């Protein structure tokens, strides 16, 4: 039990650190092939098929985003933003005894970003749906509930 908790918490920290360090291919590897990366707009609880989101990416979209950031022509990220992500308030709902293969992890993220000398702070309640994919847990869905998701936002060209 404790080992499971530590492994999952470690995955959440690793996910944040890979983004901070710009290790985007390794970041992609943390996700399942059918993953969704979602940043709702306007509110935390919206129907993404009826309401606009800030980001609603399939795995394929995530790959395109990463390829663009690595292309040398993503000018808003030239030079790349530097970021620190603090992950806190980790709550993990372990799968039930009847063998559910996914679990939910809730976190609070503080994201500090320095983009071309502009300093921005974002906070978000995040929800991860994780799936056990022998031999590790992988991210099936990452939902980022930005506190400022209904405000006009300056460019956030980095992955959140």
């Amino acid at each position, binding site marked *: 039990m404790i080992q499971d908790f530590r492994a999952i918490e470690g995955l959440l920290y690793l996910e944040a650190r890979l983004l901070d360090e710009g290790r985007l291919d390794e970041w992609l590897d943390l996700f399942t092939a059918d993953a969704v990366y979602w*940043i709702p707009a306007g509110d935390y609880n*919206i129907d993404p098929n009826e309401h*606009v989101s*800030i*980001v609603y990416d399939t795995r394929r*979209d995530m790959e395109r985003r990463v390829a*663009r950031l690595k292309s*040398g022509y993503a000018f808003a990220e030239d030079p790349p933003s530097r970021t620190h992500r603090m992950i806190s308030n980790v709550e993990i709902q372990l799968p039930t005894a009847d063998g559910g293969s996914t679990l939910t992890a809730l976190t609070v993220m503080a994201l500090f970003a320095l983009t071309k000398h502009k300093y921005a702070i974002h906070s978000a309640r995040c929800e991860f749906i994780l799936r056990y994919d022998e031999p590790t847990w992988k991210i099936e869905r990452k939902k980022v509930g930005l506190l400022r998701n209904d405000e006009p*936002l*300056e460019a956030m060209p980095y992955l959140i």
Partner: protein
Amino acid sequence: MSLDISSLIRKDAVHRSIYTDPEIFDLEMEQIFHRTWVYLAHISEIREDGDYKTTFIGRHPVIVSHVADGQISVLINRCRHRGATVCQDEFGNSRVFRCVYHSWTYANTGKLIGVPHPQAYGEDFSRSELGLGRVPRVAMHRGFIFGSMAAHGPTLDEHLGGTKKLLDEFCEISPSGEIEVFRGLQKCAYNGNWKLQLENGVDPYHVEFLHRSTFTRETLKIYNQSRGKVIDMDGHGVTDHRDIGPPRRDGLPNGGFNVVIFPNLILLRTQIRTVRPISVNRTEIYTNVVRLPGVEDQLNKFRLRTQEFEFGPCGVVFADDLDVFERAQRGLQSSAVEWLLVSRGLDRERLENGYLCGEMMDETQHRALYRKWKGLMMQQPSKENAA
């Protein structure tokens, strides 16, 4: 007036101060945003009786209400007693707006219907004269609602000119001829002048360079072909790719047109983009995603997902636009170089159907916007009295 506006716009160039001078921004608010037709809302955002949306006309906070049966009222969101806003939400449904401060209450027609302890006012206290301020002219075309703070002046039809037909065409790709918007907005901001976004809304020249990380060679062909054109359409800016095909239901860029309806509305692909000037060096952009009622869900979902991927603050296209607006604003702080070039294609413009046209990567459409800008900025100041 201390500003010599006419000297700031040349045939081939515009002066940097129109992007950087706070005094010019103040004059733009008075002469442009507080006079001409400003886009406010799409009817599908306030579909039901009592629905409202709050937004701005220049510096005026306004409430756009669907009073009943298609009747729209646009009211100044400011209590007549002590000035507080009476409506706080961006979207909602209410037939009354109550100021929480002293509980003055107004109908969504603007009428003052409640004043607590009224006996303190004298005999000349007139409720009928103390309704919420009213935007004098409101008009709608194909569900696009516009307001004008000027009681007199060109009609909306006259203001739209040829772009009225483009609004029609934008809607007519829907099987019913009507469009609606998905709920919610993409909201962006940048530290730069509002006109940088207007120019960029009709700028085929930049696409293959600034957006080369996103667009494929195939897509870029439409911008590099010679049959498309750019148009000065009654002072609004148009880039016209309809030689390839009409606006596409899937929202992809090969076909259709981009249009900037001066001063704050941009239509392109799946978007209704609204430009909100905050100050000379701060701008907000609110964008709706258009849904086509009656087409299959998959297609509408594709429109939504594509726009989310490319636009908004994390958009793979728009993040670079927002960045370049800020680069421009920084560069324009230098007075060592006074002029910005808008001269592309100046010597090869031609008249077609009464409109000045240029080739695809010319700047006729930008010169259109500055022709309009100059005309409005130099009109006689308004003598209309405020309430």
